[in-house]
């Protein structure tokens, strides 16, 4: 099987996000960068499929210079090769642009399944996988918590509000990975060293034949509006405090 896993490098969830004073984005100093956790579920599932059915796992990623580290991590986990879309013209690429660049690479290689994360935890946009499916004109199943390949079809479990769907799609298709799909492996030291020798092909806008075209433009970023300071409820005993809270929820906040 030819399996593609698309990844993005993002700040770790524990990272404190500081905005640049001019509101033009985040201050990247002292950020710990990782593979987007949802993308990592996709990489892990791709590797498990390769172990079961044979074949190759190809990583495709768009990002600045620092993103190569995330690609090397995915190769250390066991992926075979990578395409690394790196061109300063793509700085500020939105979901559509990102999917278009990924599609330009993917169209040149064989694939049965494409994994993406269901969303990246930096811009929280959650669009790239589905746009990619639309651009490649193949089916999508988003937010997958379980997948099983049976012949030329894949069965996918997808949680929705109050229910779980079992969906069948023909291959090839795009699957977006959700928490619960698997537990990603940690690469060993020999794997990390070995990954340095694996092929990473760098692509720029010119070689892809894609020009920068942003449709969703982030005009600025701002901190969340501060909540007014809360009230710590004091009282002699727990019963008094609980009674006061119940009263405040009813009469002041009017939420019960």
């Amino acid at each position, binding site marked *: 099987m030819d399996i593609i896993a698309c990844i993005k490098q993002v700040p770790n969830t524990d990272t404190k996000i500081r905005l640049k004073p001019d509101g033009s984005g985040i201050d990247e100093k002292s950020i710990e960068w990782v593979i987007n956790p949802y993308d990592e579920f996709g990489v892990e599932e791709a590797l498990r499929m390769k172990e079961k059915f044979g074949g190759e796992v190809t990583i495709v990623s768009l990002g600045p210079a620092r993103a190569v580290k995330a690609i090397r991590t995915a190769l250390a986990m066991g992926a075979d090769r990578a395409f690394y879309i790196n061109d300063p013209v793509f700085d500020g690429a939105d*979901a*559509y642009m990102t999917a278009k660049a990924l599609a330009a690479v993917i169209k040149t290689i064989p694939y049965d399944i494409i994994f993406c994360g269901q969303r990246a935890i930096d811009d929280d946009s959650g669009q790239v996988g589905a746009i990619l499916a639309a651009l490649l004109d193949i089916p999508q199943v988003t937010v997958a*918590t379980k997948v099983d390949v049976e012949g030329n079809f894949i069965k996918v479990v997808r949680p929705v509000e109050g229910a779980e769907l079992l969906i069948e799609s023909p291959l090839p298709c795009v699957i977006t990975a959700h928490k619960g799909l698997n537990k990603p492996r940690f690469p060993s030291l020999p794997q990390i060293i070995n990954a340095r020798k694996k092929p990473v092909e760098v692509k720029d806008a010119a070689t892809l034949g894609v020009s920068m075209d942003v449709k969703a433009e982030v005009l600025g970023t701002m901190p969340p509006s501060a909540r007014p300071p809360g009230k710590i*409820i004091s009282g002699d005993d727990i019963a008094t405090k609980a009674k006061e809270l119940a009263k405040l929820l009813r009469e002041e906040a009017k939420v019960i």
Partner: protein
Amino acid sequence: MAKGVWIITEQRYGTFRKVSFELASTARKLADELGEDVCAILLGSGIEGIAGELGKYGVDKVYVADQPIFEPYTTDAHAAAIVQLVKEYNPSILLLGASSQGKDLSAHLVGRLETGMATDCTDVNIVDGRLRAIRPMYGGKCFGEVAINASPQMASLRPNVFPVVERAREAVIVKFEPAIGPDQLKTKILEVRKTANGKADLTEANIVISGGRGMKGPENYAVLEELAELLGATVGASRAAVDAGWRPETDQVGQTGKVVSPKLYIACGISGATQHLAGMGTSKCIVAINKDPDAQIFAAADYGIVDDLFKVVPELTKEIKALVL
């Protein structure tokens, strides 16, 4: 020229989901500023009768396609119908709910319509005749202001955030029959397994009560369940509780779990890591119960009680029972 504010409504088993009315009310506000009409798309099977309800929330015209292929929802059938309509009528703004279905469909439409979208917005306005969206990024650690330089200008709205406003309006109902070939329908729903036991999903619940590491074990969630039962609330969990195996992954509230925005969020034994705050920070009223006075959650809370949750929660249940029953 592109004209009109359009919404894609969502219904299940012939009943509109609340987000549909939030979409209609918000679209009305935007359309009034632009001096344009609000049009809604309603897809499903046996749903024609509910179309008129949308007038009450400010919709001028409803395009209804009532066919078995639209039930249950699949990306393929819904996207095919919507793309046909959008290409024919060329709306300037297209809004969806950032629900499971809305997220799946909207992102696909971005690709099919070759446009841009602001996802999971918490505010939308008109600035100089164009859509301007505000949306959380980095799990709500900051907010971005987004403009769409393409048509239609798409945005998905976070459920439970936008107000539902009733108006006296009569919607015109237009039936349409999109031409969708069987070759366009690739994915199939084999099974729908209900998981909620009649409880609202976390993302749709009016009240959420979550337990974290301070719950000490899975058996102790019974105290939260009892209060939840009384308030009609849904029980959630922090990542620590899910990672410990106490609660299923579908219950996790946070940056790598569900994003919830209830009118009341009660955090019990939750320290308030940024990962958790990202998932509930837009809740209207936040209550924290934790015995650690330095817990970060108190900084985010409207009301806090510093004490043992196992004593506070049963007492609170008793007091609320006395108030509301």
